[in-house]
Protein backbone atom coordinates (compact mmCIF):
# COMPACT_ATOMS: atom_id res chain seq x y z
CA UNK A 1 0.00 0.00 0.00
CA UNK A 2 1.17 3.49 -0.78
CA UNK A 3 1.48 5.99 2.01
CA UNK A 4 -0.43 9.26 1.80
CA UNK A 5 2.57 11.32 0.78
CA UNK A 6 3.56 8.76 -1.83
CA UNK A 7 0.05 8.93 -3.21
CA UNK A 8 0.11 12.71 -3.39
CA UNK A 9 3.44 12.61 -5.15
CA UNK A 10 2.21 9.98 -7.62
CA UNK A 11 -0.88 11.96 -8.50
CA UNK A 12 1.17 15.15 -8.77
CA UNK A 13 3.63 13.54 -11.16
CA UNK A 14 0.86 11.98 -13.22
CA UNK A 15 -1.01 15.30 -13.37
CA UNK A 16 2.04 17.07 -14.74
CA UNK A 17 2.49 14.34 -17.30
CA UNK A 18 -1.17 14.53 -18.30
CA UNK A 19 -0.89 18.31 -18.65
CA UNK A 20 2.18 18.00 -20.88
CA UNK A 21 0.39 15.45 -23.00
CA UNK A 22 -2.96 17.20 -23.25
CA UNK A 23 -1.89 20.83 -23.54
CA UNK A 24 -0.81 20.74 -27.22
CA UNK A 25 -3.99 18.89 -28.17
CA UNK A 26 -6.07 21.44 -26.33
CA UNK A 27 -4.23 24.29 -28.08
CA UNK A 28 -4.68 22.56 -31.41
CA UNK A 29 -8.40 22.07 -30.98
CA UNK A 30 -9.41 25.46 -29.49
CA UNK A 31 -7.36 27.35 -32.02
CA UNK A 32 -8.90 25.50 -34.92
CA UNK A 33 -12.19 27.24 -34.03
CA UNK A 34 -10.66 30.75 -33.94
CA UNK A 35 -10.10 33.23 -36.75
CA UNK A 36 -6.46 33.77 -37.67
CA UNK A 37 -6.12 37.03 -35.71
CA UNK A 38 -7.45 35.67 -32.48
CA UNK A 39 -5.03 32.74 -32.62
CA UNK A 40 -2.21 35.19 -32.05
CA UNK A 41 -3.94 37.50 -29.58
CA UNK A 42 -5.44 34.74 -27.46
CA UNK A 43 -3.60 31.49 -28.15
CA UNK A 44 -4.68 29.38 -25.14
CA UNK A 45 -8.18 30.48 -24.15
CA UNK A 46 -11.55 29.39 -25.49
CA UNK A 47 -12.52 31.09 -28.77
CA UNK A 48 -14.25 34.49 -28.41
CA UNK A 49 -15.33 34.51 -32.03
CA UNK A 50 -16.33 30.96 -32.88
CA UNK A 51 -15.74 29.99 -36.50
CA UNK A 52 -16.02 26.84 -38.57
CA UNK A 53 -14.27 28.43 -41.55
CA UNK A 54 -11.23 26.24 -41.13
CA UNK A 55 -13.21 23.00 -41.16
CA UNK A 56 -15.35 24.18 -44.08
CA UNK A 57 -12.25 25.00 -46.05
CA UNK A 58 -10.74 21.61 -45.28
CA UNK A 59 -13.79 19.58 -46.12
CA UNK A 60 -15.08 21.54 -49.12
CA UNK A 61 -12.00 22.95 -50.79
CA UNK A 62 -8.90 21.01 -51.62
CA UNK A 63 -8.35 17.29 -51.55
CA UNK A 64 -8.34 16.61 -47.88
CA UNK A 65 -10.69 13.62 -48.27
CA UNK A 66 -8.27 11.98 -50.66
CA UNK A 67 -5.27 12.59 -48.41
CA UNK A 68 -7.24 11.24 -45.55
CA UNK A 69 -8.27 8.04 -47.27
CA UNK A 70 -4.74 7.53 -48.59
CA UNK A 71 -3.35 7.77 -45.10
CA UNK A 72 -5.92 5.35 -43.71
CA UNK A 73 -5.18 2.84 -46.48
CA UNK A 74 -1.46 3.11 -45.99
CA UNK A 75 -1.67 2.83 -42.21
CA UNK A 76 -4.17 0.01 -42.02
CA UNK A 77 -2.62 -2.11 -44.76
CA UNK A 78 0.89 -1.61 -43.39
CA UNK A 79 -0.20 -2.47 -39.85
CA UNK A 80 -2.05 -5.55 -41.03
CA UNK A 81 1.01 -6.76 -42.92
CA UNK A 82 3.38 -5.96 -40.05
CA UNK A 83 1.23 -7.85 -37.58
CA UNK A 84 0.67 -10.79 -39.92
CA UNK A 85 4.27 -11.30 -40.98
CA UNK A 86 5.60 -10.31 -37.59
CA UNK A 87 3.53 -12.86 -35.69
CA UNK A 88 4.24 -15.63 -38.19
CA UNK A 89 7.95 -14.96 -37.98
CA UNK A 90 7.80 -14.71 -34.20
CA UNK A 91 6.00 -18.07 -33.89
CA UNK A 92 8.56 -19.75 -36.11
CA UNK A 93 11.57 -18.10 -34.48
CA UNK A 94 10.36 -18.84 -30.96
CA UNK A 95 9.64 -22.50 -31.66
CA UNK A 96 12.57 -23.35 -33.85
CA UNK A 97 15.75 -23.76 -31.84
CA UNK A 98 18.91 -23.74 -33.88
CA UNK A 99 21.85 -21.56 -34.79
CA UNK A 100 20.07 -20.52 -37.97
CA UNK A 101 17.04 -19.27 -36.07
CA UNK A 102 19.20 -17.25 -33.70
CA UNK A 103 21.01 -15.74 -36.66
CA UNK A 104 17.73 -14.80 -38.33
CA UNK A 105 16.41 -13.34 -35.12
CA UNK A 106 19.51 -11.19 -34.63
CA UNK A 107 19.32 -10.21 -38.29
CA UNK A 108 15.78 -8.92 -37.81
CA UNK A 109 16.55 -7.20 -34.53
CA UNK A 110 19.61 -5.48 -36.03
CA UNK A 111 17.12 -3.43 -38.02
CA UNK A 112 16.28 -1.61 -34.80
CA UNK A 113 19.70 0.00 -34.84
CA UNK A 114 19.83 1.10 -38.47
CA UNK A 115 17.79 4.19 -39.42
CA UNK A 116 15.91 3.25 -42.56
CA UNK A 117 16.24 6.80 -43.91
CA UNK A 118 19.90 6.14 -44.59
CA UNK A 119 18.68 4.05 -47.49
CA UNK A 120 16.41 6.70 -48.98
CA UNK A 121 18.33 7.06 -52.23
CA UNK A 122 18.33 3.33 -52.85
CA UNK A 123 14.69 3.11 -51.92
CA UNK A 124 13.87 5.81 -54.47
CA UNK A 125 15.73 3.81 -57.13
CA UNK A 126 13.89 0.70 -56.07
CA UNK A 127 10.52 2.42 -56.34
CA UNK A 128 11.47 3.79 -59.76
CA UNK A 129 12.45 0.30 -60.84
CA UNK A 130 9.10 -1.11 -59.79
CA UNK A 131 7.27 1.99 -61.09
CA UNK A 132 5.67 2.52 -57.71
CA UNK A 133 6.59 6.18 -57.44
CA UNK A 134 3.70 8.55 -56.92
CA UNK A 135 1.48 5.75 -55.62
CA UNK A 136 0.69 4.83 -52.04
CA UNK A 137 2.08 1.36 -52.80
CA UNK A 138 5.55 2.84 -52.60
CA UNK A 139 4.99 3.63 -48.94
CA UNK A 140 3.57 0.35 -47.70
CA UNK A 141 6.61 -1.92 -48.23
CA UNK A 142 8.87 0.65 -46.62
CA UNK A 143 6.63 0.93 -43.56
CA UNK A 144 6.33 -2.82 -43.26
CA UNK A 145 10.10 -3.15 -43.37
CA UNK A 146 10.37 -0.36 -40.82
CA UNK A 147 7.94 -2.04 -38.45
CA UNK A 148 9.30 -5.58 -38.67
CA UNK A 149 12.22 -5.41 -36.20
CA UNK A 150 10.26 -4.07 -33.24
CA UNK A 151 7.29 -6.36 -34.00
CA UNK A 152 9.46 -9.45 -34.15
CA UNK A 153 11.27 -8.35 -31.02
CA UNK A 154 8.06 -7.92 -29.02
CA UNK A 155 6.11 -10.84 -30.46
CA UNK A 156 8.91 -13.38 -30.20
CA UNK A 157 9.30 -12.57 -26.52
CA UNK A 158 5.56 -13.14 -26.06
CA UNK A 159 5.47 -16.44 -27.94
CA UNK A 160 8.45 -17.68 -25.94
CA UNK A 161 6.47 -17.01 -22.79
CA UNK A 162 3.60 -19.25 -23.84
CA UNK A 163 3.96 -22.78 -22.46
CA UNK A 164 5.42 -25.01 -25.18
CA UNK A 165 3.19 -27.89 -24.11
CA UNK A 166 0.17 -25.99 -25.37
CA UNK A 167 1.43 -26.30 -28.93
CA UNK A 168 2.23 -29.96 -28.32
CA UNK A 169 -1.27 -30.54 -26.97
CA UNK A 170 -2.80 -28.89 -30.03
CA UNK A 171 -0.65 -31.03 -32.32
CA UNK A 172 -1.65 -34.20 -30.51
CA UNK A 173 -5.25 -33.10 -31.01
CA UNK A 174 -4.69 -33.13 -34.75
CA UNK A 175 -4.18 -29.43 -35.42
CA UNK A 176 -1.92 -28.36 -38.28
CA UNK A 177 0.76 -25.67 -37.76
CA UNK A 178 -1.45 -23.21 -39.58
CA UNK A 179 -4.39 -24.10 -37.38
CA UNK A 180 -2.27 -23.74 -34.24
CA UNK A 181 -1.12 -20.33 -35.43
CA UNK A 182 -4.64 -19.10 -36.10
CA UNK A 183 -6.50 -20.72 -33.22
CA UNK A 184 -3.92 -20.69 -30.42
CA UNK A 185 -1.07 -18.30 -31.14
CA UNK A 186 -2.96 -15.31 -32.54
CA UNK A 187 -5.68 -15.19 -29.85
CA UNK A 188 -3.13 -15.49 -27.08
CA UNK A 189 -0.93 -12.84 -28.69
CA UNK A 190 -3.71 -10.26 -28.96
CA UNK A 191 -2.30 -7.94 -26.29
CA UNK A 192 1.14 -8.14 -27.84
CA UNK A 193 -0.27 -7.56 -31.30
CA UNK A 194 -2.11 -4.48 -30.04
CA UNK A 195 1.14 -3.22 -28.52
CA UNK A 196 2.94 -3.67 -31.81
CA UNK A 197 0.10 -2.02 -33.72
CA UNK A 198 -0.02 1.04 -31.48
CA UNK A 199 3.71 1.36 -31.58
CA UNK A 200 3.82 1.38 -35.38
CA UNK A 201 0.56 3.22 -35.99
CA UNK A 202 1.84 6.62 -34.88
CA UNK A 203 5.05 6.38 -36.85
CA UNK A 204 3.25 5.49 -40.04
CA UNK A 205 0.37 7.94 -39.66
CA UNK A 206 2.67 10.86 -38.96
CA UNK A 207 5.45 10.00 -41.37
CA UNK A 208 6.34 12.94 -43.55
CA UNK A 209 9.66 11.86 -44.99
CA UNK A 210 8.76 9.03 -47.32
CA UNK A 211 5.62 10.67 -48.80
CA UNK A 212 7.81 13.72 -49.39
CA UNK A 213 10.47 11.84 -51.35
CA UNK A 214 8.25 9.28 -53.09
CA UNK A 215 5.12 11.20 -53.90
CA UNK A 216 4.43 14.27 -55.95
CA UNK A 217 1.04 13.42 -57.45
CA UNK A 218 -1.90 15.17 -55.78
CA UNK A 219 -4.06 12.03 -55.65
CA UNK A 220 -1.47 9.99 -53.76
CA UNK A 221 -0.64 12.47 -51.02
CA UNK A 222 -1.03 11.62 -47.36
CA UNK A 223 -2.33 13.96 -44.67
CA UNK A 224 1.14 14.76 -43.36
CA UNK A 225 2.27 15.79 -46.83
CA UNK A 226 -0.98 17.63 -47.59
CA UNK A 227 -0.85 19.64 -44.40
CA UNK A 228 2.70 20.73 -45.09
CA UNK A 229 1.47 22.53 -48.18
CA UNK A 230 -0.67 24.75 -45.96
CA UNK A 231 2.39 26.12 -44.23
CA UNK A 232 3.63 28.78 -46.64
CA UNK A 233 6.95 30.51 -46.36
CA UNK A 234 5.36 33.91 -45.82
CA UNK A 235 1.75 33.29 -45.04
CA UNK A 236 0.03 30.39 -43.34
CA UNK A 237 -3.69 29.87 -42.94
CA UNK A 238 -3.46 28.72 -39.35
CA UNK A 239 -7.17 28.13 -38.84
CA UNK A 240 -7.26 25.80 -41.81
CA UNK A 241 -4.01 24.07 -40.89
CA UNK A 242 -5.14 23.43 -37.34
CA UNK A 243 -8.55 22.20 -38.49
CA UNK A 244 -6.85 19.74 -40.80
CA UNK A 245 -4.65 18.48 -38.01
CA UNK A 246 -7.60 18.15 -35.62
CA UNK A 247 -9.51 16.07 -38.14
CA UNK A 248 -6.44 14.01 -38.87
CA UNK A 249 -6.17 13.09 -35.22
CA UNK A 250 -9.66 11.59 -35.06
CA UNK A 251 -9.10 8.22 -36.77
CA UNK A 252 -5.89 7.63 -34.95
CA UNK A 253 -7.62 8.34 -31.65
CA UNK A 254 -10.34 5.84 -32.49
CA UNK A 255 -7.79 3.23 -33.50
CA UNK A 256 -5.83 3.93 -30.35
CA UNK A 257 -8.85 3.54 -28.09
CA UNK A 258 -9.76 0.27 -29.78
CA UNK A 259 -6.28 -1.13 -29.39
CA UNK A 260 -5.43 0.28 -26.00
CA UNK A 261 -7.77 -2.03 -24.11
CA UNK A 262 -5.81 -5.00 -25.41
CA UNK A 263 -2.59 -3.10 -24.86
CA UNK A 264 -3.40 -2.55 -21.18
CA UNK A 265 -4.32 -6.23 -20.84
CA UNK A 266 -0.86 -7.02 -22.13
CA UNK A 267 0.77 -4.69 -19.62
CA UNK A 268 -1.05 -6.24 -16.68
CA UNK A 269 -0.94 -9.84 -17.96
CA UNK A 270 1.02 -12.01 -15.58
CA UNK A 271 0.79 -9.40 -12.84
CA UNK A 272 -2.10 -11.33 -11.34
CA UNK A 273 -1.98 -15.09 -11.26
CA UNK A 274 -5.19 -16.54 -12.71
Amino acid sequence: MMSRSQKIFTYFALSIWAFIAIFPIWTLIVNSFKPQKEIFSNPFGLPQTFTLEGYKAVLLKGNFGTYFLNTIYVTVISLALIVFFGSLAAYALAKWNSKASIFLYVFFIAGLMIPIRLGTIDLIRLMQFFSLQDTIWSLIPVYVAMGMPISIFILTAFVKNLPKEMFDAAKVDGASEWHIYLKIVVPLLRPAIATVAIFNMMKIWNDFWFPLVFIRAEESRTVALGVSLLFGQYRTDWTRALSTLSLAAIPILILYILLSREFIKGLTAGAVKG
Partner: protein
Amino acid sequence: MSVNIKINNAVKKFGENTVISDISVDIKDKELFTLLGPSGCGKTTLLRMIAGFNTIEGGEFYFNEKKINDMEVSHRNIGMVFQNYAIFPHYSVRQNVEFGLRNRKLDKAVVTEEADKFLKLMQIYEYRDRKPEQLSGGQQQRVALARALVIKPDVLLMDEPLSNLDAKLRLEMRQVIRDVQKEVGITTVYVTHDQEEAMAISDRIAVMDFGVIQHIGTPQEIYHRPSNTFVATFIGRTNFVDAHYLANKKLVEVGEYNFKVDNISLEKNNDVILSVRPEDFLFHEEAKTSLKGVIKDSFFLGLNTHQLVELQHNKQLVEVIRESSLENELPIGEKISLSIKGHKVNLFSKDSKENLVKRS
Protein backbone atom coordinates in the same frame (compact mmCIF):
# COMPACT_ATOMS: atom_id res chain seq x y z
CA MET B 1 -9.39 -50.33 -30.28
CA SER B 2 -6.78 -52.53 -28.78
CA VAL B 3 -3.25 -51.33 -29.14
CA ASN B 4 0.00 -52.61 -27.77
CA ILE B 5 3.19 -50.62 -27.98
CA LYS B 6 6.44 -52.28 -28.91
CA ILE B 7 9.76 -50.53 -28.64
CA ASN B 8 12.90 -52.21 -29.96
CA ASN B 9 16.38 -50.92 -29.13
CA ALA B 10 15.41 -47.26 -28.89
CA VAL B 11 18.29 -44.78 -28.96
CA LYS B 12 18.07 -41.06 -28.27
CA LYS B 13 20.91 -38.58 -28.59
CA PHE B 14 20.94 -34.85 -28.04
CA GLY B 15 23.99 -33.86 -30.04
CA GLU B 16 26.89 -35.89 -28.65
CA ASN B 17 24.98 -36.69 -25.49
CA THR B 18 23.32 -40.13 -25.51
CA VAL B 19 20.33 -39.93 -23.20
CA ILE B 20 18.81 -43.32 -24.04
CA SER B 21 21.26 -45.95 -25.19
CA ASP B 22 19.17 -49.06 -25.80
CA ILE B 23 15.64 -49.50 -24.52
CA SER B 24 13.30 -52.31 -25.51
CA VAL B 25 9.88 -52.70 -23.96
CA ASP B 26 6.53 -54.26 -24.72
CA ILE B 27 3.49 -52.45 -23.41
CA LYS B 28 0.37 -54.54 -23.43
CA ASP B 29 -3.07 -53.59 -24.58
CA LYS B 30 -5.16 -51.65 -22.01
CA GLU B 31 -2.27 -51.69 -19.58
CA LEU B 32 -1.29 -48.78 -17.35
CA PHE B 33 2.45 -48.85 -17.80
CA THR B 34 4.64 -46.51 -15.77
CA LEU B 35 8.09 -45.17 -16.48
CA LEU B 36 9.61 -44.52 -13.08
CA GLY B 37 13.02 -43.14 -12.29
CA PRO B 38 15.00 -40.30 -10.78
CA SER B 39 15.04 -36.85 -12.34
CA GLY B 40 16.99 -36.67 -15.59
CA CYS B 41 16.95 -40.41 -16.30
CA GLY B 42 15.14 -39.95 -19.62
CA LYS B 43 11.49 -40.72 -18.84
CA THR B 44 10.13 -37.63 -20.56
CA THR B 45 12.50 -38.16 -23.45
CA LEU B 46 11.20 -41.70 -24.06
CA LEU B 47 7.59 -40.58 -23.71
CA ARG B 48 8.12 -37.79 -26.22
CA MET B 49 9.65 -40.28 -28.63
CA ILE B 50 6.47 -42.33 -28.41
CA ALA B 51 4.42 -39.16 -28.94
CA GLY B 52 6.53 -38.10 -31.90
CA PHE B 53 7.91 -34.86 -30.51
CA ASN B 54 11.47 -36.16 -30.37
CA THR B 55 13.54 -37.44 -33.22
CA ILE B 56 14.53 -41.09 -32.92
CA GLU B 57 18.23 -41.81 -33.40
CA GLY B 58 17.83 -45.58 -33.43
CA GLY B 59 15.43 -48.46 -32.92
CA GLU B 60 11.82 -49.09 -33.90
CA PHE B 61 8.55 -48.01 -32.37
CA TYR B 62 5.37 -49.92 -33.14
CA PHE B 63 1.69 -49.44 -32.35
CA ASN B 64 0.47 -52.98 -32.98
CA GLU B 65 2.13 -53.96 -36.28
CA LYS B 66 2.36 -50.39 -37.52
CA LYS B 67 5.79 -48.78 -37.36
CA ILE B 68 5.41 -45.19 -36.20
CA ASN B 69 9.00 -43.92 -36.29
CA ASP B 70 8.30 -41.43 -39.06
CA MET B 71 4.60 -40.84 -38.53
CA GLU B 72 3.39 -37.29 -37.92
CA VAL B 73 2.34 -36.52 -34.34
CA SER B 74 -1.15 -35.62 -35.45
CA HIS B 75 -1.58 -38.96 -37.23
CA ARG B 76 -0.53 -41.17 -34.33
CA ASN B 77 -3.94 -40.86 -32.66
CA ILE B 78 -2.61 -40.32 -29.17
CA GLY B 79 -3.96 -38.41 -26.20
CA MET B 80 -1.53 -36.59 -23.99
CA VAL B 81 -1.70 -35.03 -20.53
CA PHE B 82 1.03 -32.65 -19.42
CA GLN B 83 2.45 -31.67 -16.06
CA ASN B 84 1.29 -28.06 -16.48
CA TYR B 85 -2.07 -29.18 -18.00
CA ALA B 86 -1.44 -27.10 -21.15
CA ILE B 87 -5.11 -26.33 -21.58
CA PHE B 88 -5.93 -23.38 -23.82
CA PRO B 89 -6.55 -20.36 -21.58
CA HIS B 90 -8.66 -18.46 -24.12
CA TYR B 91 -11.15 -21.31 -24.59
CA SER B 92 -13.90 -22.38 -22.23
CA VAL B 93 -13.80 -25.83 -20.68
CA ARG B 94 -16.16 -27.12 -23.34
CA GLN B 95 -14.17 -25.57 -26.20
CA ASN B 96 -11.01 -27.13 -24.82
CA VAL B 97 -12.59 -30.55 -24.80
CA GLU B 98 -14.10 -30.05 -28.25
CA PHE B 99 -10.83 -28.85 -29.79
CA GLY B 100 -9.63 -32.24 -30.99
CA LEU B 101 -13.06 -33.28 -32.23
CA ARG B 102 -13.40 -30.13 -34.32
CA ASN B 103 -10.05 -30.82 -35.96
CA ARG B 104 -11.48 -34.14 -37.05
CA LYS B 105 -14.26 -32.36 -38.93
CA LEU B 106 -17.02 -34.32 -37.25
CA ASP B 107 -20.67 -33.46 -37.36
CA LYS B 108 -21.56 -30.70 -34.93
CA ALA B 109 -24.09 -32.82 -33.06
CA VAL B 110 -21.53 -35.59 -32.64
CA VAL B 111 -18.96 -33.12 -31.32
CA THR B 112 -21.35 -31.84 -28.67
CA GLU B 113 -22.49 -35.30 -27.69
CA GLU B 114 -18.98 -36.73 -27.33
CA ALA B 115 -17.75 -33.68 -25.43
CA ASP B 116 -20.70 -33.93 -23.04
CA LYS B 117 -19.95 -37.58 -22.42
CA PHE B 118 -16.39 -36.92 -21.36
CA LEU B 119 -17.23 -33.75 -19.44
CA LYS B 120 -19.58 -35.87 -17.40
CA LEU B 121 -17.15 -38.76 -17.07
CA MET B 122 -14.54 -36.39 -15.65
CA GLN B 123 -17.20 -34.66 -13.52
CA ILE B 124 -16.59 -31.20 -14.92
CA TYR B 125 -19.87 -30.88 -16.80
CA GLU B 126 -21.09 -28.15 -14.43
CA TYR B 127 -18.00 -26.08 -15.20
CA ARG B 128 -18.33 -26.45 -18.96
CA ASP B 129 -18.78 -22.74 -19.68
CA ARG B 130 -16.03 -21.51 -17.39
CA LYS B 131 -12.64 -20.32 -18.48
CA PRO B 132 -9.68 -22.39 -17.23
CA GLU B 133 -8.51 -19.57 -14.96
CA GLN B 134 -11.71 -20.00 -12.95
CA LEU B 135 -10.88 -23.62 -12.13
CA SER B 136 -8.75 -25.20 -9.42
CA GLY B 137 -5.65 -27.18 -10.34
CA GLY B 138 -7.44 -30.49 -9.93
CA GLN B 139 -10.32 -29.35 -12.12
CA GLN B 140 -7.90 -28.11 -14.76
CA GLN B 141 -6.23 -31.49 -14.81
CA ARG B 142 -9.65 -33.10 -15.27
CA VAL B 143 -10.18 -30.85 -18.29
CA ALA B 144 -6.82 -31.91 -19.67
CA LEU B 145 -7.73 -35.55 -19.18
CA ALA B 146 -11.12 -35.09 -20.83
CA ARG B 147 -9.50 -33.33 -23.76
CA ALA B 148 -6.98 -36.13 -24.14
CA LEU B 149 -9.58 -38.91 -24.01
CA VAL B 150 -12.40 -37.40 -26.04
CA ILE B 151 -10.66 -38.04 -29.35
CA LYS B 152 -10.70 -41.79 -28.58
CA PRO B 153 -6.94 -42.13 -28.84
CA ASP B 154 -5.23 -45.48 -29.27
CA VAL B 155 -2.70 -44.56 -26.64
CA LEU B 156 -2.77 -42.21 -23.67
CA LEU B 157 0.50 -40.58 -22.60
CA MET B 158 0.88 -38.76 -19.30
CA ASP B 159 3.96 -36.88 -18.12
CA GLU B 160 3.88 -36.31 -14.36
CA PRO B 161 0.24 -35.21 -14.50
CA LEU B 162 -0.07 -34.92 -10.73
CA SER B 163 3.11 -33.15 -9.72
CA ASN B 164 1.59 -29.65 -9.78
CA LEU B 165 -1.16 -30.65 -7.36
CA ASP B 166 -1.05 -30.60 -3.58
CA ALA B 167 -0.70 -33.85 -1.66
CA LYS B 168 -4.39 -34.45 -1.01
CA LEU B 169 -5.52 -33.74 -4.56
CA ARG B 170 -2.75 -35.97 -5.83
CA LEU B 171 -4.26 -38.93 -4.04
CA GLU B 172 -7.73 -38.10 -5.30
CA MET B 173 -6.65 -37.54 -8.91
CA ARG B 174 -4.54 -40.65 -9.00
CA GLN B 175 -7.65 -42.65 -8.17
CA VAL B 176 -9.57 -40.76 -10.86
CA ILE B 177 -6.88 -41.51 -13.44
CA ARG B 178 -6.81 -45.19 -12.55
CA ASP B 179 -10.61 -45.53 -12.62
CA VAL B 180 -11.01 -43.69 -15.91
CA GLN B 181 -8.14 -45.59 -17.51
CA LYS B 182 -9.79 -48.88 -16.62
CA GLU B 183 -13.25 -47.69 -17.63
CA VAL B 184 -12.16 -46.39 -21.02
CA GLY B 185 -9.77 -49.31 -21.42
CA ILE B 186 -6.87 -47.57 -23.05
CA THR B 187 -3.19 -48.44 -23.31
CA THR B 188 -1.48 -45.86 -21.13
CA VAL B 189 2.10 -44.80 -20.58
CA TYR B 190 2.50 -42.86 -17.38
CA VAL B 191 5.63 -41.00 -16.29
CA THR B 192 6.45 -40.19 -12.70
CA HIS B 193 9.39 -39.96 -10.34
CA ASP B 194 7.19 -40.70 -7.33
CA GLN B 195 7.55 -44.39 -6.48
CA GLU B 196 4.49 -44.51 -4.24
CA GLU B 197 2.32 -43.02 -6.99
CA ALA B 198 3.76 -45.52 -9.45
CA MET B 199 3.03 -48.45 -7.15
CA ALA B 200 -0.53 -47.29 -6.49
CA ILE B 201 -1.53 -46.68 -10.07
CA SER B 202 0.37 -49.08 -12.33
CA ASP B 203 -0.23 -52.49 -13.77
CA ARG B 204 3.44 -52.69 -14.56
CA ILE B 205 6.39 -50.42 -13.91
CA ALA B 206 9.66 -49.91 -15.75
CA VAL B 207 12.28 -48.56 -13.35
CA MET B 208 14.81 -46.46 -15.24
CA ASP B 209 18.18 -45.02 -14.37
CA PHE B 210 20.62 -43.22 -16.66
CA GLY B 211 18.51 -43.99 -19.72
CA VAL B 212 18.51 -47.73 -19.07
CA ILE B 213 15.60 -49.84 -17.86
CA GLN B 214 16.70 -51.53 -14.66
CA HIS B 215 13.62 -53.62 -14.03
CA ILE B 216 10.20 -54.19 -15.58
CA GLY B 217 7.52 -55.84 -13.51
CA THR B 218 4.37 -55.51 -11.47
CA PRO B 219 4.59 -53.31 -8.36
CA GLN B 220 4.74 -56.46 -6.21
CA GLU B 221 7.55 -58.05 -8.20
CA ILE B 222 9.58 -54.88 -8.17
CA TYR B 223 9.13 -54.36 -4.46
CA HIS B 224 9.74 -57.94 -3.35
CA ARG B 225 12.29 -59.07 -5.92
CA PRO B 226 14.12 -55.97 -7.20
CA SER B 227 16.57 -56.87 -9.95
CA ASN B 228 19.51 -54.92 -8.52
CA THR B 229 20.45 -52.68 -5.61
CA PHE B 230 19.39 -49.51 -7.42
CA VAL B 231 15.84 -50.78 -7.78
CA ALA B 232 15.85 -52.06 -4.20
CA THR B 233 16.66 -48.60 -2.84
CA PHE B 234 14.58 -46.62 -5.31
CA ILE B 235 11.40 -48.59 -4.59
CA GLY B 236 10.67 -48.41 -0.90
CA ARG B 237 13.42 -48.46 1.71
CA THR B 238 15.93 -51.14 2.32
CA ASN B 239 19.07 -51.95 4.33
CA PHE B 240 22.16 -53.41 2.75
CA VAL B 241 24.21 -55.61 5.08
CA ASP B 242 27.45 -57.36 4.18
CA ALA B 243 26.88 -61.10 4.42
CA HIS B 244 28.30 -64.43 3.35
CA TYR B 245 26.46 -67.25 1.60
CA LEU B 246 27.25 -70.89 2.35
CA ALA B 247 26.11 -72.82 -0.70
CA ASN B 248 26.18 -76.37 0.70
CA LYS B 249 24.18 -75.49 3.83
CA LYS B 250 22.05 -72.84 2.09
CA LEU B 251 22.80 -70.45 4.93
CA VAL B 252 23.29 -66.69 4.98
CA GLU B 253 25.77 -65.61 7.63
CA VAL B 254 25.70 -62.13 9.13
CA GLY B 255 28.33 -62.01 11.84
CA GLU B 256 27.38 -64.64 14.42
CA TYR B 257 23.84 -64.83 13.15
CA ASN B 258 22.70 -66.99 10.28
CA PHE B 259 19.46 -68.03 8.66
CA LYS B 260 18.37 -70.41 5.96
CA VAL B 261 17.41 -69.46 2.40
CA ASP B 262 16.72 -72.07 -0.21
CA ASN B 263 16.09 -70.36 -3.53
CA ILE B 264 19.51 -68.91 -4.26
CA SER B 265 21.13 -69.33 -7.66
CA LEU B 266 24.65 -69.51 -6.33
CA GLU B 267 26.69 -72.70 -6.60
CA LYS B 268 29.55 -71.90 -4.28
CA ASN B 269 30.25 -69.93 -1.14
CA ASN B 270 30.49 -66.21 -1.75
CA ASP B 271 30.33 -62.75 -0.18
CA VAL B 272 26.99 -61.14 -0.96
CA ILE B 273 24.98 -58.03 -0.26
CA LEU B 274 21.99 -58.85 1.91
CA SER B 275 19.00 -56.54 1.38
CA VAL B 276 16.47 -56.41 4.22
CA ARG B 277 13.44 -54.12 4.21
CA PRO B 278 13.00 -52.30 7.55
CA GLU B 279 9.77 -54.20 8.25
CA ASP B 280 11.46 -57.58 7.77
CA PHE B 281 13.43 -57.45 11.03
CA LEU B 282 11.92 -59.12 14.08
CA PHE B 283 12.69 -58.13 17.67
CA HIS B 284 13.52 -60.78 20.26
CA GLU B 285 13.74 -60.64 24.01
CA GLU B 286 16.72 -62.98 24.02
CA ALA B 287 17.44 -65.62 21.46
CA LYS B 288 20.39 -67.94 21.10
CA THR B 289 21.42 -67.04 17.58
CA SER B 290 20.39 -63.50 16.89
CA LEU B 291 21.71 -60.34 15.33
CA LYS B 292 22.94 -58.16 18.19
CA GLY B 293 22.78 -54.39 18.04
CA VAL B 294 22.30 -51.10 19.88
CA ILE B 295 19.51 -48.61 19.30
CA LYS B 296 21.05 -45.34 18.15
CA ASP B 297 17.99 -43.28 17.31
CA SER B 298 14.23 -43.54 17.22
CA PHE B 299 11.48 -41.76 15.25
CA PHE B 300 7.85 -42.06 16.22
CA LEU B 301 5.63 -41.72 13.12
CA GLY B 302 2.27 -42.72 14.56
CA LEU B 303 1.42 -46.13 13.20
CA ASN B 304 5.06 -47.16 13.10
CA THR B 305 8.22 -46.35 14.95
CA HIS B 306 11.45 -46.25 12.96
CA GLN B 307 14.63 -47.13 14.81
CA LEU B 308 18.24 -46.89 13.74
CA VAL B 309 20.20 -49.87 15.00
CA GLU B 310 23.97 -50.23 14.98
CA LEU B 311 24.94 -53.85 14.38
CA GLN B 312 27.37 -55.12 16.97
CA HIS B 313 29.63 -57.17 14.74
CA ASN B 314 30.48 -54.61 12.05
CA LYS B 315 29.03 -51.29 13.28
CA GLN B 316 26.71 -50.97 10.21
CA LEU B 317 23.57 -48.92 10.76
CA VAL B 318 20.25 -50.45 9.75
CA GLU B 319 16.74 -49.04 9.83
CA VAL B 320 14.10 -51.11 11.57
CA ILE B 321 10.34 -50.49 11.55
CA ARG B 322 8.05 -51.69 14.32
CA GLU B 323 4.42 -51.11 14.92
CA SER B 324 4.16 -48.49 17.67
CA SER B 325 2.99 -49.73 21.05
CA LEU B 326 1.44 -47.95 24.01
CA GLU B 327 4.13 -49.08 26.41
CA ASN B 328 7.40 -47.27 26.52
CA GLU B 329 9.48 -47.93 23.44
CA LEU B 330 12.96 -49.31 23.73
CA PRO B 331 15.17 -46.34 24.69
CA ILE B 332 18.20 -45.13 22.80
CA GLY B 333 21.31 -47.05 23.89
CA GLU B 334 19.37 -50.24 24.61
CA LYS B 335 21.00 -53.48 23.49
CA ILE B 336 18.64 -55.58 21.40
CA SER B 337 18.44 -58.86 19.50
CA LEU B 338 17.07 -59.07 15.97
CA SER B 339 16.22 -61.80 13.57
CA ILE B 340 15.39 -61.60 9.87
CA LYS B 341 12.44 -62.92 7.87
CA GLY B 342 14.58 -65.12 5.65
CA HIS B 343 11.99 -65.75 2.93
CA LYS B 344 11.55 -62.05 2.22
CA VAL B 345 15.16 -60.89 1.92
CA ASN B 346 17.09 -60.47 -1.30
CA LEU B 347 20.72 -61.31 -1.93
CA PHE B 348 22.69 -59.29 -4.43
CA SER B 349 26.02 -60.09 -5.99
CA LYS B 350 28.91 -58.01 -4.67
CA ASP B 351 28.84 -55.79 -7.79
CA SER B 352 25.19 -54.85 -6.98
CA LYS B 353 24.09 -55.85 -10.47
CA GLU B 354 22.31 -59.14 -9.94
CA ASN B 355 19.63 -60.44 -7.63
CA LEU B 356 20.69 -63.97 -6.62
CA VAL B 357 17.22 -65.03 -5.51
CA LYS B 358 15.57 -67.28 -8.10
CA ARG B 359 12.27 -65.94 -9.38
CA SER B 360 9.49 -68.40 -8.91
